[in-house]
């Protein structure tokens, strides 16, 4: 039999997927903006609910920022495969001759670029409002950027498992949030340790290791989950 | 050999009765309940299957009479 698709086309397919997804998401701008608004809103609730005292806020700010960013990422997961599932293009993706893990990896990359990265860039601003001590802003943004990539990958597994269900929303958070805990511990820990005058490098290294592990394993799990949800 | 002098001492557990007996009680309850549940599940399934097969049996014989 003749080989119809030469191997070199994988790069083309990945690039095409990224470009297509970027265009689609950017066309519906609310999908990018809503998680950011949610993030800011949740952070606004805490001083109102706890106390506006800067000292108290500074003490809990790393954890608050991380938990709020985590919830914002989690809420945006539902849209990751939903529209592709509804219009049938997810089925096309499964039928394509390219390896599915590579294609879902590019979709997850787009999710991170348009959700995790903006959240990480916005976090220092909100940190300012929570009186976060000065030396920790860079680590906050960097740990969130690194950690949210893992969050996107892990979350995509849950999103792929629940995309075929009509009411998957709450179930999705039940599946995904426990798996987020290691990232939360080391992400918030990195910011905390800088505030206490320590070295954040070990924490960031572990966050990086988690990302490597997620990069190695998650694409296969996402691909398998999508196959179940579509062919199921 | 025994750690307690009397049966009431065993029940009292040196003032820790509420803790020890509630932990043991819940464990025993869950184990016994799961065993009983497995048994009643089996009985229900068997009864349903038997009933269904008898009904089908009668239906088949009914058809044979008609023809």
């Amino acid at each position: 039999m003749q080989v119809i698709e030469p191997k070199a086309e994988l790069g083309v397919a990945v690039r095409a997927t990224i470009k297509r997804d970027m265009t689609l998401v950017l066309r519906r701008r609310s999908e990018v903006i809503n998680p950011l608004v949610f993030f800011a809103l949740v952070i606004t609730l805490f001083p109102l609910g706890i106390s506006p005292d800067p000292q108290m806020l500074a003490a809990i700010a790393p954890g608050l920022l991380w938990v709020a960013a985590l919830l914002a990422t989690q809420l945006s997961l539902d849209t990751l495969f939903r529209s592709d599932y509804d219009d049938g293009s997810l089925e096309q993706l499964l039928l394509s001759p390219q390896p599915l893990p590579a294609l879902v990896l590019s979709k997850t990359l787009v999710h991170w670029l348009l959700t995790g990265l903006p959240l990480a860039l916005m976090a220092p601003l909100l940190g300012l409002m929570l009186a976060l001590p000065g030396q920790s802003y860079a680590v906050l943004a960097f740990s969130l950027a690194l950690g949210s990539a893992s969050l996107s990958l892990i979350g995509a597994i849950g999103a792929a498992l629940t995309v075929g269900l009509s009411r998957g929303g709450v179930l999705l958070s039940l599946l995904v949030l426990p798996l987020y805990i290691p990232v939360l511990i080391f992400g918030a820990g990195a910011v905390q340790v800088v505030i206490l005058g320590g070295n954040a490098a070990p924490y960031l290294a572990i966050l990086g290791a988690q990302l490597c592990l997620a990069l190695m394993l998650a694409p296969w799990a996402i691909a398998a989950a999508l196959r179940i949800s579509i062919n199921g | 050999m025994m750690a307690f002098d009397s049966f009431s001492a065993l029940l009292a557990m040196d003032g820790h009765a509420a803790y020890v007996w509630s932990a043991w009680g819940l464990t025993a309850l869950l184990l016994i309940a799961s065993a009983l549940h497995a048994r009643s599940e089996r009985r229900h399934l068997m009864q349903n299957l038997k009933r269904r097969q008898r009904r089908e049996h009668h239906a088949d014989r009914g058809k044979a009479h008609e023809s």
Partner: protein
Amino acid sequence: MWAFIHKLGSPKWFYAISARLQPWFWGLAILLLLVGSVWGLVFAPSDYQQGNSFRIIYVHVPAAILAQSCFVAMAVSGVIFLVWKIKIADMAATVIAPFGAAMTFVALFSGAVWGMPTWGTWWVWDARLTSMLIQLFLYLGVIALRGAFASRDSGARAASVLALVGVVNIPIIKYSVNWWNTLHQPATFTLTERPAMPVEMWLPLLIMVLGFYCFFIALTLTRTRNEILRRESAKRWVRELVADTDRRG
């Protein structure tokens, strides 16, 4: 070897072999649990630090061990089901999940109750209790995901994938929680870690652990047989079996 596994995977053969095995496991479980309970509750000496509250160890530790073993067993069954499409494996995974969740709850409850006389509060964010709590959420997620699918086969495969993802994550979660715990509350004394327990204390514990395992095996065998009856009720051998028991009364 392969022939054996595929034979084991046939529901009919499993039904026959488990009928012979299960009385032994039930009997062994009852015997071990009774001996272990009486020994642990009545004969084991009380602890010099914790007094009699330490007797909770005899239900806490076996439940905690079993809670973890059940998750691994569930994930292994999931892999067998996903790779070789052996239905028995999924039936086993279906019945293991609720029991594993129950054992996790027992471990959490007994840990909390033990915490009161030991630490003076019902709940401490101790590393073991915290990872146990997270594990309970993982169990609930697997059970909920299976139930959410309309088709049994898709639900089974989705639950298998999630169990597999969970089992990869459990060591990572444990490691992270331990790190976090040592950071936030250094050197609290943990419930079950103690220097060299004397024989008359750990022997009943060993018996209880074995008893819990036998109970788990027996319950899984019995409930897997029930699942076979439920899912294979249209098969000829099941119909003959039912007719047979019906005739005998």
